[in-house]
């Protein structure tokens, strides 16, 4: 079995806020991430797929096709956007790194030709990242 990983980057704004809580509770739990003016990150996305190596092409997946899917489904939607305000799945879900990995999995699942999605990894900063395996 071969695992193939493609990276992509997007830069987005977000904030953490739970409408069910008071402002004081939001500030206590989320700290500076609760600033309603937002802040932003350069995110790095790593998408790992698995599949059978095609005996003719030697590919698990055509990298150009994978790149196009990432661009269409994720980067084109998230890059230079405010996640809370402009991306539908984060109107009702807090755009934490954990939830971003799950959201990206849902955007990509079943859309990568000839390969199976294995892992979505999102780096918010180089020292913090989340992995989702579809579990």
């Amino acid at each position, binding site marked *: 079995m071969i*695992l193939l990983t493609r990276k992509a980057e997007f830069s987005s704004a977000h904030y*953490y806020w*739970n409408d*069910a*809580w008071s402002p004081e509770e939001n500030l206590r*739990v*989320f*700290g500076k991430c609760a600033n309603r003016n937002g802040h932003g990150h350069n995110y790095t996305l790593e998408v790992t797929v698995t599949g059978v190596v095609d005996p003719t092409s030697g590919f698990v997946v055509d990298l150009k096709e994978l790149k196009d899917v990432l661009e269409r489904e994720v980067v084109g939607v998230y890059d230079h956007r405010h996640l809370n305000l402009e991306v539908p799945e984060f109107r009702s*879900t*807090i*755009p*934490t*790194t*954990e*939830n971003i*990995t*799950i959201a990206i999995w849902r955007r990509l699942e079943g859309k990568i030709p000839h390969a199976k999605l294995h892992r979505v990894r999102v780096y918010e900063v*180089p*020292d*913090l*990242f*989340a*992995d*989702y*395996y579809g*579990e």
Partner: protein
Amino acid sequence: MKVHLSRRYHFSASHRLHTEAYDSAKNQAVFGKCNNPHGHGHNYTVQVTLSGQVDPATGMVCNLAELDAFAQTNLIDRFDHTNLNRLDCFANKVSTTENLSIEIYRIFQGFTGAHLERIHIEETSNNSFDYAGEATSAPGTI
């Protein structure tokens, strides 16, 4: 929905690989330049991987501020700018990064905010070590 969250921490420490079980010639033969009596040091990176269900109220596996506070008290304050060989945990153990990984795994088992999956330590950019408890599997298979 189970998510793995990984956080990287950094500390700098000195150490010397040496055991009283060997004579000085054997220490030198086994540990080479790491046996230098005056010690040497590294910038260590510790990558802590936790897992758990995402809390629908917070969107988090665990509160990062609590994890960082735990790491500051139990990892950074304890190991940064120290001589590892002088610490209690290495009184009877060689301060290899293998043993350091096991010790730091034990420390983070005390963090109750999420399930500890793995400790990954980079001693240099070329050497890294993983410990996931007794059932440690190969990196990349989790």
